[in-house]
């Protein structure tokens, strides 16, 4: 068991200083902007909570938030089951394990703007591999710069390509921690593949799956660079996710007040959902 020791704080201080410097100062700047109005020339006027009210009532914010939730829900619904299936069918030992792991981790190590650019070129009609295959081989009309549905499918496919491996690796780590004796016992009992999965594998994967869902939720909810480079939020606003909209308001229109208020609301939503996941996760840890 852990012992109570207040001196442990000394060990945490360096981390505390470093993260506080990076987190609190910018956060205060954002809070500062969110309650003021500026007309340039560094003149600021007290605005109170007007920006928050304006953002919370605006259709534009609702639409972006809706798209964001739809996106996150879609990729979670695809990546989590797919990740489990792939992890279950991975080899358990031998040289192929290393090869699989390295190849699978590869997409995660590519800079995000390169991921976006890569998929952009990959999907171009006529000259991109995917675009060519869809239009000229399958005969489906596919152009993500014109068709919102095609743009959505491309953004989702890119994220599945980029991050499913995270779920696979996590589940695989969970599966590897199951002792062989469990499988032998199940074999003696004549358990079906399904009941092995349901009663042995799934419970062992619970912790890692929670981590996977938590990480995928946080990262997909904050996603910016990849879809921005891939579609620029278009066609129209169809793939303008929350972060993209935020940057448009902050840097495109230079509406710092509303952008700051939106940042705080955005952050609060991420925090709330993540807190729920975190509580679920640490509840298991304590047992």
């Amino acid at each position, binding site marked *: 068991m*852990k012992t*109570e*020791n*207040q001196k442990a*704080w000394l*060990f945490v201080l*360096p*981390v505390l200083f470093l*993260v506080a*410097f*990076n*987190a609190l*100062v*910018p*956060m205060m700047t954002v809070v500062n902007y969110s309650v003021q109005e500026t007309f340039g020339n560094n003149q600021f006027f007290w605005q109170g909570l007007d920006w928050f009210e304006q953002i919370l009532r605006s259709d534009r914010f609702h639409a972006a938030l809706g798209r964001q939730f739809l996106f996150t829900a879609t990729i979670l619904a695809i990546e989590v089951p797919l990740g489990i299936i*792939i992890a*279950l*069918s*991975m*080899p358990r030992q031998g040289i192929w394990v*290393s090869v*699989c*792991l*390295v190849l699978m*981790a*590869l997409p995660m*190590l*590519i*800079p*995000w*703007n*390169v991921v976006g*650019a*890569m998929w952009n*070129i990959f999907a171009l009609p*006529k*000259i991109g*591999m995917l675009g060519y295959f869809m239009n000229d081989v399958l005969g489906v009309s596919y152009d993500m710069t014109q068709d919102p549905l095609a743009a959505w499918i491309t953004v989702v496919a890119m994220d599945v*390509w980029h991050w499913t491996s995270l779920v*696979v*690796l*996590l589940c695989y*780590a*969970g599966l*590897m921690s199951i002792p062989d004796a469990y499988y032998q016992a199940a074999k003696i009992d004549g358990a079906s593949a399904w009941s092995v999965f349901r009663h042995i594998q799934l419970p062992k994967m619970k*912790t*890692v799956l929670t*981590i996977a869902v938590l990480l995928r939720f*946080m990262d997909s909810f*904050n996603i*910016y*660079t990849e879809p921005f480079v891939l579609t620029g939020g278009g066609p129209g606003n169809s793939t303008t996710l929350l972060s993209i909209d*935020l*940057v448009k308001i*902050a840097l495109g229109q230079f509406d710092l007040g509303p952008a700051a208020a939106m*940042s705080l609301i955005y*952050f609060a939503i991420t*925090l709330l959902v*993540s807190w729920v996941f975190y509580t679920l996760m*640490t509840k298991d840890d304590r047992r």
Partner: protein
Amino acid sequence: MRKRGIIPVVYILFLVLPIYWLVSMSFKTTNEILAGFSLFPQTFTIDSYIAIFTDSTWYWGYINSIIYVSLNTVLSVTVALPAAYAFSRYRFLGDKQLFFWLLTNRMAPAAVFALPFFQLYSSIQLFDTHLAVALAHTLFNVPLAVWILEGFMRGIPKELDETAYVDGYAFPHFFVKIFLPNIKAGIGVTAFFCFMFSWVEMLLAKTLTAVEAKPIAAVMTRTASSAGYELGLLAAAGTLTIIPGAIVIWFVRNYIARGFALGRV
């Protein structure tokens, strides 16, 4: 069993296709790329790579990125080690709250922080230095490093600490000479993750630099906009960004799955 093997193969094929496309494009001329679809380069050329390796703006982009990523990795792991030890061994006032607060920084959208970061680092005269990007990236790397290291450390039995005390080792000696070698794998994996997230993050890196410490991403966007679309050059530059990651992943391949599970399996 045989049939099962097909699933990872199909999946890896799906992962490799876009990468293959990028690499194959980097060996084509821009004219060939724009002329239409071809699976293999018709006129094989390494001109794009030559252009990158002979232009100092290009290759300095890579060097700059590697400098701030390494700085960040060393910084993050160093400060995270004692903190992770404290979290894994002791209870103290506000420990759970502190741990969660650290995690919240992993959740903050980078887009939210871009502008305030620019102002913060300009005001302390660090704008356009490698240190600025390395420090900014600790925002999400330090919490992650603490999280992973704590998972690995909790797997080391407390008896190890107690035996060392009984044997009369002073704490710093115990920590560096006895404890750290026991979590070597954990430190390796943590360093890998810090490297990875600092390497792939480009929004803050771009915001905090102008000329002196410009990362490869900023160089790429410049080329994309000024010279029309130099697709061949862009593909070559993209291909080169994959290589450092591929190298480091090979070193930690045996621990990577456990690392992704934050040491919690």
